């Protein structure tokens, strides 16, 4: 009996030691001050409309985009088993997803095509902030100088765009230009298992205006290089102000992203 009493007293004492007052539970996440940011960062979110944990990851990415306005660019790539067959899925999205691995769980989120890969809503929530923070502080030799895009052709379905890049060192790079779209209302499975038929999807990948792996460019140190292409946008239902282009400059062979920028799809 004496032994039992000692155990009860010790347990009660230790239970009391682990309480944390409500005002001490949360520390607001601070974002890097602007003077420490060296580059823009691309977040590729391999998501799906049938993926219940994906909205959690989406919320985290949007929080980062808001906190690092202009420096963090997220793209929702509907792909994989939980995206296939749904309105926002594209075959190109599967191609990009397969480059990381086969049959990966979703969401899978990748920063700048580095080894910083996070799977599952919880892993994204707990790891993405520090991963993005670290990547933002890495310098980049590339500057995306300008982007210009005009509509032409029948019904304005031909997009002619021009991208100028500068580099501080001689570099061979691949340049991809993607179309993403905000404000798409379509169904989405939610973390509680229900389906939200009026979910507003943002930054959804829609098409690539360049070749699948991009266009090769050689940029000499201290100089700028220019990429000019036309794209047939006739498959698009409509080009609106919700459409943006994302310019991605990366190392060859699907290497690490060197720089990224986001512009309105059609220049005003």
């Amino acid at each position, binding site marked *: 009996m004496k032994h039992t009493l000692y*155990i009860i007293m010790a347990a009660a004492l230790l239970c009391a030691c682990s309480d*944390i007052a409500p005002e001490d539970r949360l520390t607001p996440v601070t974002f890097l001050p602007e003077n420490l940011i060296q580059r823009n960062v691309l977040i590729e979110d391999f998501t799906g409309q049938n993926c219940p944990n994906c909205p959690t990851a989406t919320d985290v990415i949007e929080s980062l985009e808001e906190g690092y306005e202009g420096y963090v660019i997220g793209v929702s790539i509907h792909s994989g*088993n939980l995206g296939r067959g749904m309105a926002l899925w594209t075959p190109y999205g599967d191609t990009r997803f397969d480059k990381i691995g*086969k*049959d990966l769980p979703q969401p899978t989120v990748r920063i700048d095509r580095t080894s910083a890969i996070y*799977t599952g809503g919880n892993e994204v*929530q707990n790891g993405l902030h520090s991963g993005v923070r670290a990547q933002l502080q890495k310098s980049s030799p590339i500057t995306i100088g300008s982007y210009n895009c005009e509509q032409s052709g029948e019904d304005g379905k031909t997009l002619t765009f021009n991208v100028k890049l500068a580099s501080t060192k001689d570099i061979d790079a691949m340049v991809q230009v993607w179309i993403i779209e905000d404000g798409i209302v379509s169904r989405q*499975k939610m973390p509680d298992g229900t389906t939200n038929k009026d979910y507003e999807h943002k930054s959804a990948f829609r098409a690539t205006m360049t070749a699948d792996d991009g266009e090769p460019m050689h940029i000499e140190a201290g100089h700028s290089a220019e990429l000019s292409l036309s794209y047939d946008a006739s498959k698009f239902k409509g080009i609106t102000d919700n459409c943006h282009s994302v310019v991605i400059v990366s190392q060859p062979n699907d290497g690490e992203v060197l720089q990224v920028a986001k512009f309105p799809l059609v220049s005003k």
Partner: protein
Amino acid sequence: MGGLLLVGSLAPCTEAQAQVTVNGSVQSDMMIAPQQDDRIGTSEYDNKYFLTNTYADATLQSQHVDAGARFELTQWPMPGFASAPNQDFKGWGLPNIWVKGKLKHVELTVGNFYDQFGSGFIFRTYEERTLGVDNSLLGGRAVVDAGKGIRLKALSGVQRNYWRLNRSVISGLDGEWALEEIVAPWQQKGTHLSLGLSWVNKWENDSHDPLYFDNGNYLLTVPEFVNAVDARLRFQKAGFNVLAEYAHKSADPNTALNGGIYRPGNAVMLSAAYSKSGISALVQAKRSDNMAFRSKRADSHSTTSFINHQPAFTLDHTYALAAMYPYATGTDDNRIGEWAYQASLAYKFKGRFAPKFKANYSLVQSIDRQNIEGSAQDRTDGYKSSFFKWGDECYYQDFNIQYEHKLNKQWELHATVMYQDFNRVIQNHEGHIKSYIAIFEPKWKINKKFTLRGEAQYLHTDHESGDWGFGLLELSVAPYLMFSVSDQIGRPESANGEDYGDVTHYFNFTATANIKSHRLQLGYGRTRAGVNCTGGVCRYIPASKGFTINYNYNF
């Protein structure tokens, strides 16, 4: 089992002979040249030539010292054990080594060990190879027989997480007191009353694994120490048995398990059973609320780093169609608590060739949950929950009647009819699959050498997943051999869980040989994608096709 006899000259203090016995086992599950099969949705295998989960363990036992070790080879694991990107299951080596000293009233273990406090609500470490679960502690444990019916345990260690050890330190104390040891009349009348009390502490420094709250807007300050206590009472007299147990866990915010809230957890269970010649009955009720307990907060995998075990109050079915939609205990914010009930009644008529009936009912219901709204700080309290009130979701319901009858010396019959209501929220999908299942299993002992067993199963449901059928024939050739052929027919579920393919045959052929301590099974066929569950803990198994070899040896 091998034996080694040491003669007295090696034991100078006594003339007694010291005997050391060696026993162990080898278990190897293998797949040769696994095949792709688009019809059933196979994915890429870890190795296109050979896959295996192999375990070999050996134990030495002597009067005062036992020791053991286990070798594991899971570098190219069987399908479903190392799905990308979690490849942590892969590896090989000696992850389990231990030494145990046995004195008169004390037992000391150093190394890897398994143990359980009470029903496991606050502490249970175990190995279950079919699930890839091994959450042993590496450390030390002392068990003391303190006399007068009192047994005490103290343990401390770090938990195995595949081929690594989690950083947190788990410690615990457990006491059980069998009161009949001090009340002589109780012993004489066969009355048993035991009290149990346990405490577990987890010490985890959060600096290595930061956790965020509110979509990453806040960093969580997590408690360095999490404590859990458990109290239980067990009464047994004649055929009557009652168990009452309560467990409490202090605030343990964990974004994977409970969304990062500071609400404490608790579990309460009441179980009553009665058995007498020919009749047995069981009634159980359990309520659990935020009791999942992990040794690594940032771990979000479904089977790793759990310190405790929340038993499922549902029957573990062994028939293929009855086990198609198994219940898994909730381990995330979506199913943070449950009310679970189980009742069963069995009756065997008298007589050698008399039938036996068994009825079983299980119900698992969500608990009441009123989320606390407001600021992020307010929301760290999580939710309120009225104790006796149910939530809106029925997670699982199962009513089945089993009939067993040895008709005569040659014929034996088993039959089951069952109604099952499976809530697809268990699989993170919507809707219920309600099915009616009928199973008929005759067994014919043709002669002393040959026995033929068959199974015919049918599952009917109005859900778009459609009906399923299963047939099996198994021929045993005494004393060594067994051959079986089976086919499961139905519409496979797509990877996104929203669509169903064309009617597909999942055929299987096996040949088994049991010779002395060796068992070898060869097989070929298709395996349907699904979940494999034991005791409420489940692992997803992907579709696969190929040749399999299973070998077991005990010595």
